[in-house]
Every structure is written in structure tokens, then in C-alpha cells.
């Protein structure tokens, strides 16, 4: 039986691990399918304090992990498949193994939203991508689409012009949500054009052959659907919390975020805490995730003492 099990190894989970390990709670961390969390798919992180020249996301997360291990946190490259918080001790299932814990810190973060088309998931990694920094390299001299209208869509589109010969932003509305400065940067780039009032409704291609080859785009004003050839589609329509695992176990809000008490990481279940992007729909930054990871560890420690 573990005193504390931490689910997730982003800034929130690993900060919780540092604090819990220093409090002698011997935390066990399940790293999940994205060890190090979302920052491992970005390049320079320039707003994390302590690194005046910036630091690469993967490198920053390596440091987080090493610091947690330094104080005795155990980290496993495993994904939690199922949880049962209905009775104590709490149970977590990993493959066919069962783990028991007196308290659990959930820091499963968020992942990129997708359109939800069957063809999209079939072609993910074969022309469809949710990570420009990971996959841009493979689209040298290609014509590609970016879906979205926020800052991250502008950033991805701009970044991708380093590789692609043309980038077309496909956006559902007739204006962008992105900040002025990001819009200007994208719109002034000669390689970038925009399809307004448009959405992708179908994708075509064979993952075993050439991958993505074309998409159907619907004009939302005229209703007209036109087939466009393309080599790649990059999704930048925001993120959703990774909370499917907790659906019938904890209170979630209508967007799927775990609800925590004000100024706290306490969830609807005593002994279960939630930190980082899984409960924060406002700030969604590495530093705030780390901050709430610290809070969760301290609150778990107090909970265990009160037993």
C-alpha cells in the first residue's frame, strides 16, 4: 500500500512528487504515455522562472524528474487504465496489476482537441498531426493546412512556414480569436493564407500507402463542400482535460475539468487531489501547474496526518 500515488508526470505531477518525497511520503508516480507532459512537445520555454535564457521543454522536464527522484520519488513509465475511488484504500489498475493508495494526486493534464472524424484518427501520424514542432520536419516543400483561430494556431502556422511551401489556416469564423501581434505575424507571412468560415468535414488517404492526400472543406456560409489536395493537417483547436478515467468517480464540470474547492486541490472525494491543467481552465501554464502540484502534495500530507 502506498501513501501517495501521483498520476501524471507533467509540471504538476513531478512538483507534487518533489514535495511528497521531501515529506517522506515515498510517492509513486505513473508517468503515462507522455512522460514529462505537454512541455515535451514544445521547444523553448521562455517564461519559466529561473532560466533567464529560456530552456528546452524536454530538458526542463528531465530536470523536474531528476529532482523528484533525487528525494526518493519512484517513477514508472506506465499508464493508469482504471481507478476505483469508491472505497478505501483507493485502487488503481495498470494493465493487470492493481495498486493501492491512501491518497491520490491526479495531474493527468490536457491533450490536443481533435475534430472527432474517424478518418482523422486513422490518419493521425500519417499526415494528420497535433504537434507542429514534432512533425513539421516531415513537410518540407509541402502544402499543408492548420486548423484553428487562436494564438496556438497562429504560432503553429508561422512555425510551419520554416518547412512547408504553403500553409493555409482553416477557420470556422470570419475573424481570429488570436492576439493582434500573433495574427499580424501570421498574416504578414507570404506563405500563409486563410480560408474563413470553413471547416474540414472529411479526410482521405491510406495510412499504409501515401498517408493523407485530400480533405473535404465545407464553407459554413454557402454550405458548399469542396475537395482540396493536401499533404498535412495540423490541429490547433485547443486542449481538453484528460479526465475520462474519473468520470463516474469525481465531480467534473461541463467541459470535463475536475472540480476542486476554492484555493485548494481538494476534489469531491476526500483523499483525492487534483492539480494542474486537469483542474485549471484559466491559466494553463507550467508554473501554475507546478504551483498547484505543490499545493496538492501539502494537502495530501495534511490529509494523511489527520488519519
Amino acid at each position, binding site marked *: 500500500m502506498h501513501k501517495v500515488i501521483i498520476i501524471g508526470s507533467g509540471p504538476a505531477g513531478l512538483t507534487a512528487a518533489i514535495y511528497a518525497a521531501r515529506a517522506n511520503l515515498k510517492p509513486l508516480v505513473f508517468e503515462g504515455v507522455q512522460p514529462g507532459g505537454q512541455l515535451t*512537445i514544445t521547444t523553448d520555454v521562455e517564461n519559466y522562472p529561473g532560466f533567464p535564457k529560456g530552456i528546452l521543454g524536454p530538458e526542463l522536464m528531465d530536470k523536474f524528474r531528476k529532482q523528484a527522484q533525487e528525494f526518493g520519488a519512484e517513477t514508472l*513509465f506506465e*499508464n493508469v487504465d482504471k481507478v476505483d475511488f469508491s472505497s478505501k484504500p483507493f485502487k488503481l489498475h495498470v494493465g493487470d496489476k492493481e495498486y493501492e493508495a491512501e491518497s491520490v494526486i491526479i495531474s493527468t493534464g490536457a491533450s490536443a482537441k481533435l475534430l472527432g472524424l474517424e478518418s482523422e484518427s486513422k490518419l*493521425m*501520424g500519417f499526415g494528420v498531426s497535433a504537434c507542429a514542432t514534432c*512533425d513539421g520536419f516531415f513537410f518540407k516543400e509541402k502544402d499543408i493546412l492548420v486548423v484553428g483561430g487562436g494564438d496556438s494556431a497562429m504560432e503553429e502556422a508561422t512555425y510551419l512556414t520554416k518547412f512547408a511551401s504553403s500553409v493555409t489556416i482553416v477557420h470556422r469564423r470570419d475573424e481570429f480569436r488570436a492576439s493582434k501581434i500573433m495574427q499580424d505575424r501570421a498574416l504578414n507571412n507570404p506563405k500563409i493564407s486563410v480560408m474563413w468560415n470553413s471547416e474540414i468535414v472529411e479526410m482521405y488517404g491510406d495510412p499504409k500507402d501515401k*498517408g493523407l492526400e485530400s480533405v473535404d472543406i465545407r464553407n459554413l456560409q454557402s454550405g458548399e463542400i469542396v475537395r482540396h489536395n493536401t499533404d498535412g493537417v495540423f490541429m490547433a483547436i485547443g486542449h481538453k482535460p484528460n479526465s475520462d478515467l474519473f468520470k463516474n468517480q469525481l465531480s467534473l464540470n461541463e467541459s470535463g475539468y475536475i472540480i476542486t474547492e476554492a484555493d485548494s486541490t481538494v476534489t469531491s472525494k476526500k483523499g483525492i487531489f487534483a492539480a494542474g491543467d486537469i483542474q485549471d481552465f484559466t491559466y494553463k501554464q507550467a508554473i501554475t501547474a507546478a504551483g498547484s502540484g505543490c499545493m496538492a502534495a501539502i494537502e495530501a500530507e495534511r490529509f494523511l496526518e489527520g488519519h
Partner: protein
Amino acid sequence: MSEFTIDVNEENFDSVVMKSDKPVLVDFWAEWCGPCKMLTPTIEALAEEYKDTSSIVKINVDDSPAIATKYGIRSIPSILLFNKGDVVEQRVGAVSKDELAGMLDKIIKG
């Protein structure tokens, strides 16, 4: 470099991968790819475990872009499993050691 994985490039691809009589698991990666780094411990553990029955090789896509293009790689990490010169399995993104071991076992144990 790890003891058990082999670095493959455009020069030795044919001899190490295509002409191998054992199954060859190829990990496409790059220095700038965060998720690839995260897969490294998995690949190395697998390489040690399967050192007698398979080859586990790494291809840096920056150094060998032609191989990546030939096999239509559009995202990394990408894992291709070769048997007798043919691609028999392909995985993109995070993948567990058990899943990769299962792919190899299917060929080795028939």
C-alpha cells in the same frame, strides 16, 4: 550510444535492416524530438532483452532523410518492424514495451 541498439544510416540500412535474417525493429528519431527521448529507455530495455533474437536499430531522420521519406514517415517517434525486408508492423507515437515485445514475439515464436 547504447550497447544493444545499432545506429543505422543510409549506408548500412540495406545490410543491417533489409538483409537481416532476424526481425528488425526500427526506431525513427531526432535530437529535437522530445517524445522520442522519452521512448529511449523503452527501446534500450527492449534491445537488451531481445539481443539474441532480434535487431533493435535507431535511425536519425536528420542524418537519413531519404529512408524516412521512402517509408512515408510523417511523425516521430515512429516504429517500423521489418521481417525479411518487409514492413510488417508500424506504430506512431508513444508505445509501451509490452506492445513492442508482443510484435517481436509474434514473429520469433511464430
